[in-house]
């Protein structure tokens, strides 16, 4: 049997030592009535070669970013991953370890997580980061649960409609049975209007959630939102883009209390949605409220600097039903990838990556808008993603673009009925002028 080392002779010797006659006898705790009397109805076994052929066949039925130029965004991006990231993450000392419960046997991962936490603090301009959450959507929900534990009495959760629709859906699921009111603030102009927000922020408001840059790619007026939150003692939660802070102000610099974000764009392949990681950082004063694993520095019995999992009294395995969160693990391997990625880029590399995204997105937007009938839907500044209005049927257009070799954009009508004639287009540093010019030509052809 694959991966099983026990031979017939081994099994016999082991059964003798145990003192039973057969392997079946080991299962006598399972009542006969519940024992499955047939083999499982699952597909037959494959050898490694057959499995490789099978998976290659399945992979061949997919149009990956290698087969069609990817202009899709919406929380997952086709950024470049330097080889050093894969080289480190494929070391099995990291990927086949488990949660570092035994600090002496886990200093490698623990130190890497401490470095990750530091890098996330630097990236966000905030004081404390955890060792990561599942991904960007549940990170928003965890941020709100955290806000509730900071300020349990206030009932209103304000969230901009320009926050990723799937993040908002996740938040609604998490809060379904918790007595809080989620108020979604419309963003018809492509970003939250601070004047409209002002009408909703009051002393019953727990938190305001914005995404910056938002789901449409536009920048939010985070400075104004922050001021309003500060005036009313409201927690300001921002979902940020890890690449954008190479150029844009960091969440801590504009007054966010809790920053969360999807970490995929920092060194993790898109892999159809996961596994990714959720970044989370906050101000010092909330350190004992932040969910998830946290690594801290200490010394060992000989005074050597070392790292341990710490502040575990917040966590479910100690606090059980009184825990801040039910989260049990971080996304260790992806925290490692993110740390290597950020270290590989450094400040200058991150800035250049951000600038390439910014420049190329604006180039493509300008070129696309030269096509009759195509125009920017919003008059807002944007970063690496933008929303255009297109003539004709959007699904047909996207199908034609795919046939021409382009994952052409996200049909926003799927989430925003009023934007049925709009697509959002993301441009990373990987996109070349030639690819973009080809895309513009394909768009022209598809619209004609």
């Amino acid at each position, binding site marked *: 049997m694959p991966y099983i080392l026990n031979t017939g002779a081994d099994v016999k010797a*082991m059964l003798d030592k145990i003192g039973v006659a057969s392997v079946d006898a080991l299962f006598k705790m399972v009542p006969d009535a519940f024992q499955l009397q047939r083999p499982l109805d699952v597909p037959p076994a494959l050898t490694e070669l057959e499995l490789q052929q099978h998976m290659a066949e399945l992979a061949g039925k997919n149009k990956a970013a290698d087969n069609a130029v990817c202009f899709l965004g919406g929380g997952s991006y086709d950024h470049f991953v330097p080889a050093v990231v894969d080289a480190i993450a494929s070391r099995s000392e990291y990927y086949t370890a488990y949660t570092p419960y035994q600090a002496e046997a886990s200093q490698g991962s623990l130190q890497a997580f401490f470095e990750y936490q530091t890098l996330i603090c630097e990236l966000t301009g905030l004081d404390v980061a955890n060792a990561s959450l*599942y991904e960007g959507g549940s990170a928003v929900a965890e941020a709100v649960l955290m806000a509730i534990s900071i300020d349990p009495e206030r009932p209103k959760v304000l969230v901009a409609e320009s926050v990723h629709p799937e993040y908002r859906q996740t938040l609604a699921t998490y809060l379904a049975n918790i007595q809080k009111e989620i108020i979604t603030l419309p963003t018809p102009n492509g970003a939250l209007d601070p004047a409209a927000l002002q009408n909703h922020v009051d002393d019953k408001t727990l938190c305001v959630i914005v995404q910056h840059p938002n789901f449409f790619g536009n920048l939010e007026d985070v400075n104004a939102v922050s001021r309003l939150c500060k005036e009313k003692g409201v927690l300001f939660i921002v979902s940020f883009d890890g690449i954008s802070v190479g150029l844009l102000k960091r969440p801590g610099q504009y007054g966010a209390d809790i920053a969360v974000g999807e970490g995929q764009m920092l060194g993790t392949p898109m892999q159809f949605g996961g596994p990714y990681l959720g970044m989370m950082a906050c101000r010092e004063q909330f350190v004992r409220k932040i969910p998830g694993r946290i690594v801290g520095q200490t010394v*060992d019995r000989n005074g050597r600097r070392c790292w341990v999992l710490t502040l575990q009294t917040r966590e479910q395995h100690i606090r059980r039903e009184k825990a801040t969160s039910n989260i049990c693990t971080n996304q260790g391997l992806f925290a490692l990838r993110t740390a290597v990625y950020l270290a590989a880029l450094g400040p200058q590399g991150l800035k250049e990556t951000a600038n390439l995204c910014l420049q190329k997105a604006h180039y493509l937007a300008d070129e696309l808008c030269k096509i009759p009938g195509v125009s920017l839907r919003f008059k807002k500044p944007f970063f690496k993603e933008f929303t255009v209005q297109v003539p004709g049927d959007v699904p047909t257009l996207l199908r034609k673009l795919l046939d021409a070799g382009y994952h052409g954009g996200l049909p926003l009508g799927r989430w925003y009925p009023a934007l049925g004639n709009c697509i959002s287009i993301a441009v990373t540093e990987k996109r070349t002028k030639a690819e973009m010019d080809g895309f513009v030509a394909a768009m022209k052809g598809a619209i004609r």
Partner: protein
Amino acid sequence: MTNNQSTDLLFEISHLGRRCHRLPACDVPEKDATALVPADALADAPPPLTEVGEIDLIRHFVNLSKRNMSIDTNFYPLGSCTMKYNPKRHERLAGLPGMANLHPLQSDASCQGMLAMLWSMQNILAEIAGLDAVALQPAAGAQGELAALLVAAAYNRDKGQTQRTRVLIPDSAHGTNPASAAIAGFDAVSIKSNDNGLVDLADLKSKLDDRTAVFMITNPNTIGLFESQIGEITKLIHDAGGLVYLDGANMNAIVGVTRPGDFGADMMHYNVHKTFTGPHGAGGPGSGPIAVRAMLAPYLPTPIVVKDGDAFKQETNRPKSIGRVRSFFGNVGILLRGYCYIRTLGPKGLRAMTENAVLNANYLLALVKHALDVPHGDRCMHEFVASASKLKRAKRISAMEIAKRLLDFGYHAPTVYFPLVVPEALMIEPTETESKETLDAFAATLLKIIDEDPAFLQNAPHTTPISRPNDAKAFKEPILRWKA
């Protein structure tokens, strides 16, 4: 052989002006950033990340990796975590560009191979569970628990059973169970274990009434015992109008031998990373799909993959669904590895997996039970819980001492001090992928340690890069990031 390129922090080896990754020149006409975005949105400088060259970066993380134990370097009998071998073929296949480079929001038509795999995985997990429908979305077991409890709440709401506000949970359960119940809006009620480590039926009956929404059970339980009264328990719950939830943490003990749906579970989560061997990544990623009976299927989180003629599509329009519990489809990379494991094993291999996991655990138990107290009998399923409490009384040797000393011999420690119902617990799970020789050597070491000088053990480990970190200091004076 050690060098300080690992123990120095990245920030301490940072050197102004160094860098590893370089970007191409901008190939489109470049504008000043201030012409594109408002000045008050721009930062004066990029984040002060570390500045290191490529070889230093690589040496740092490679040397650091040597300060870990891992399945690929050490026997890792960490109870409840199912640390089985992670096949290398899975890494290669998960990295196929046609799988790894798919965008989560690309059109269904452009990812039919991926959807076919996920659809097949849904069916396989339903069959193994003996349940009707599967949602693959939850990112980890704990998120699966939360999703399933939200499903139960939505179902009860729909049936007008809103008085069902309580979730009953055995005291031997994982801490995630009560934490998930609380977030799902339920009151968690603890059920005692009896002297045999199983659910105390009298206590269960006394707490069971029409307020009971769900009974969460881990079976086999965290002590490694199959609940032989499971039929009676699930009947009691169902008669009271409650639902039975199976925490699938210990599926490695029963796959192909018995099915949760057959013994009365109405819903369950899998830990694909455990049972079907996704690499644990020093804490994640996991993947926690849930399986449910037909009456609960409408409430499952979305999307679900459905087959429409020859085509596969993601169904999101399910009006009774609890919604999504995360963005995008789920932890597809781990589901894919689980799929590869199941496809490699096939029906016979899956049963052999379970049989050998249970055989290995019982064999190890037989090798050590004369020296270490095993409070709950001399048989187990895929893991067992020994107790060091007699040793502690007699020789002042605690579970922690044994765990730490094992590290000196190149073994990762068992899970210690869990479950809470066993004092001085050592929870040992060898998994099916280990050989008899490995188990013999481990048992011999364990027995040898028990005979060592307690004073020597109190300072163990002696050979690891560090020893006995000061946890109290870390807690009282938290240093959670490097500062210049």
